[in-house]
């Protein structure tokens, strides 16, 4: 008997990671919040620690539309234009 395969063969995707900075000093950090309860508070604390202990210049929290979608284009555009690093966090 010959059977047909009900799955899809996903083409392999190669993803390059951006090089890690040697130091956080003076960097601008984008914090991507996924709307889950308390995730904003957690990220704000992380932002404060990065500033206080690692010399980060500034941080800003960006809010996704909801937890099930990627960051929307406006977030990506602003982060690309004005930030050096991203921290994406979930609260659950």
């Amino acid at each position, binding site marked *: *008997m010959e*059977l047909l395969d*009900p799955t899809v063969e996903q083409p392999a995707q190669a993803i390059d990671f951006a090089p890690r900075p040697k130091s956080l000093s003076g960097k601008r950090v984008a914090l991507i919040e996924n709307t889950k*309860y308390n995730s904003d508070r957690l990220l704000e604390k992380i932002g404060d620690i990065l500033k206080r202990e690692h010399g980060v210049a500034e941080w800003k929290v960006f809010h996704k539309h*909801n*937890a*099930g979608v990627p960051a929307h284009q406006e977030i990506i555009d602003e982060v690309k234009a004005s930030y050096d690093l991203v921290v994406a966090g979930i609260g659950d």
Partner: protein
Amino acid sequence: MPSLLSKRHKVEDLDAVEFCFQQGWTDGLPVIPPTEDRVVAMLKAAGLEPNDHVGAIENRAVAVTAEKVALNAVMAGCRPEYMKVVVAAVQAICDPAWGYHGPGTSTGGAAVLMIVNGPVVRELDINSGDNLFGPGWRANATIGRALRLVMRNVAGSKPGLLDRGTLGHPGKLSYVIGENEVTSPWTPLHVERGFRKEQSTVTILAADAPHQFYNQLSNTAEGILTTCADDMRISGNVMGQPQYVLILAGEHMRTIAADGWTKAEIRKFVFEHTHNSHEHLKRTHRMAGAIQPGDDTRMRPLVAAPEDILVVAAGGEAGAFSAYIPGWASKRSSQAITKVVK
């Protein structure tokens, strides 16, 4: 018809059903082995070519072809004439407003509730009566199963891997009902949602399990719906404001209709009687923060608007029971979607 494009497997030393289990293609129940003749029959019944585009799930980077839908419909045990309903359901889960990546993966454990309307309900013998959510009807059992197999085999929602439902529920095997348009006194769901009565549609909602409520006492619309609202007020993701489906079965349907209530009036009443006080939500640890003066009269509705309660006439003619079904998570994350069965 052009030849089928899927990878082929020769199965000689093993039972074909067992082979499907070994490949990880099934939902835990045996499947019909997907052979070429069966897949071709499925495509022909819907007038589709193998490579026809059915939909795409952007966040999963997945395109769904008619061939893959047909293959999974064969495995689910669908008759070829069910294929057009499965296709409409697949188009619905691909709609960005349904937001596949949430209900297709979430710990919240949503199933895909499918409500079928229009002539196709009678044509395909889709159950809208006795044992509404129970076994016994091939169309109900296999159409939803086919959709779930597409989610598993094409979109990658494998339980324990991408589908991380903490509890899930039995509706994740199949969760298909028809609306009872024959004896219902009300406007069918699809007509309320902007389609013509003679059109056939599928409405999907990412949904929790059904909650049955009892009212064997009241002979008024207000009495039955007061019980319903009291049962429903604290249910599902109380703070999320998801959409709800309210299923009104035979006896309750007749009692409510005898009082002259329309679906719009039912929605309005249930909406107005399912508010919770901030005091209650805080005291029961659903809303954050300490109780403040005035919280006992500060109210939060269960759903954002009356229109977020989808009223459906369905279920057995006898028995003073009905049910409500909380949608998954929140309307912000996933909305009910209606697609035409072509």
